[in-house]
């Protein structure tokens, strides 16, 4: 009996129903906590581009106190009535029509003055999507800091983009050349290049992760290019 086809099919169906129900239930129960964790992670990433967070910092408080946000369109004009937190960069990235894209801008303010502009970035790494934030200093030319994250880069190789040591390399690099043309910051191939060989627009690479580095380079350039109208507008203010 136990080996009959009908028993096997009944068993399989029963198992599917039980397992499916169990997982769906767990998903429903855990969803609020997961969304909270996700929001906190986003706030941490945004703050992480400008300050070094310590364990025990109240991220939510720091965020609401120091960060102001707005949403701009492809021409760099502020879009009224849209909250930056409601704009999902992944969806905007996939939006084919450039004129419909929305770009959130986070401003890190100190004493009422904008200390840094923090821009979300998004792209493809070697295996899966990569994303992050780049903070530009008040002059909108110099990089104040970056935070990268990934979905499936190789641990120990491409996944190193999440490490502080790698991200620190971007600090104080420039995104415009002398003529004011966007050059972005590129990560070179190979690791251990002397600082003198890198200059103002390049950062040292990650050994064994050239393809992830290429993804990061493309992501940075593309997004800085998309934000260019906004950056120019702010600079001419």
């Amino acid at each position, binding site marked *: 009996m136990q080996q009959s086809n009908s028993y096997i099919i009944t068993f399989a169906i029963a198992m599917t129903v039980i*397992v499916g129900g169990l997982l769906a239930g*767990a998903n429903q129960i855990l969803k609020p*906590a*997961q969304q909270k*964790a996700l929001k906190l992670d986003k706030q941490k990433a945004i703050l992480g581009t400008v300050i070094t967070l310590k364990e025990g910092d109240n991220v939510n408080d720091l965020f609401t106190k120091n960060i102001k946000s707005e949403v701009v369109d492809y021409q760099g004009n502020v879009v009224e009535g849209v909250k930056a937190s409601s704009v999902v960069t992944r969806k905007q990235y996939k939006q084919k029509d450039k004129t419909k894209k929305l770009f959130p801008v986070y401003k890190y303010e100190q004493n009422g003055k904008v200390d840094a502009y923090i821009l979300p970035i998004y792209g493809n790494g070697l295996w899966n999507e990569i994303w992050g934030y780049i903070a530009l200093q008040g002059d909108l030319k110099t990089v104040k800091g970056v935070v990268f994250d990934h979905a499936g880069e190789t641990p*120990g190789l491409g996944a190193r983009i*999440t490490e502080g040591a790698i991200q620190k390399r971007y600090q104080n690099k420039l995104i415009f050349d002398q003529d004011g043309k966007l050059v972005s910051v590129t990560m070179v191939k190979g690791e251990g290049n002397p600082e003198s060989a890198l200059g103002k627009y390049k950062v040292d690479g990650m050994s064994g992760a050239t393809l992830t580095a290429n993804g990061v380079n493309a992501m940075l350039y593309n997004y800085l290019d998309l934000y260019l109208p906004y950056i120019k507008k702010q600079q001419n203010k």
Partner: protein
Amino acid sequence: MSDNTNPVTEQNPPVKKASEPLFSKRRKKFISDPMNDDNPITVQVLGICSALAVTSQLKPTLVMAIAVTFVIVFSNLITSLIRNLIPNRIRIIVQLAIIATFVILVDQVLRAYLFDVSKLLSVFVGLIITNCIVMGRLEAFAMGNKPWDSVLDGMGSSLGYAWVILAVAFFRELFGSGSLFGYKVFEEMGLAIPNNGLMVTSVGAFIILGLIIWVQRAKTGYVEH
């Protein structure tokens, strides 16, 4: 495995067989064997992939060890409970479904309450499904043994896995980043020991694992046949 030690005779009627103590000598072996003589990583050489990948720091390694323990113990228990119901022809799929259920549960809980660690472990929590230690215990033990024995067996195997990856992570984090659980040990002690970049990469894990296997086999005299 038979625990039928009292053959029923006329002089010796079957009153009620004294049940085996919860931690009898036979059952203690389920826990102790995988620690050393039958260690899943160093002797059976299973679960190497995650042992190499997640062990660069102690914190994610500890979480991984707990996650694997949870998955093995509960998959073993459930499989053992329904072992007589599982149709033989689809038993592998059923085992996989049981493992996958627990892995997804672990993954979801980590995402909700330990988001940072779940990011560090990234794909490896999901890959517990393919960890041969789990599958191996279900197929080799839980399919033919009672629930409590299976729980102990799962506990033994996962502790055997846990101590090895924690040992690897201890040396990798200490020499690779100069810290333990993020606490800068060398710095606090005032020692200027430079970090060894090799230890951060998987190569470092291979070296440490090789050394552990070497020491263990030198002591137990285990020889590969």
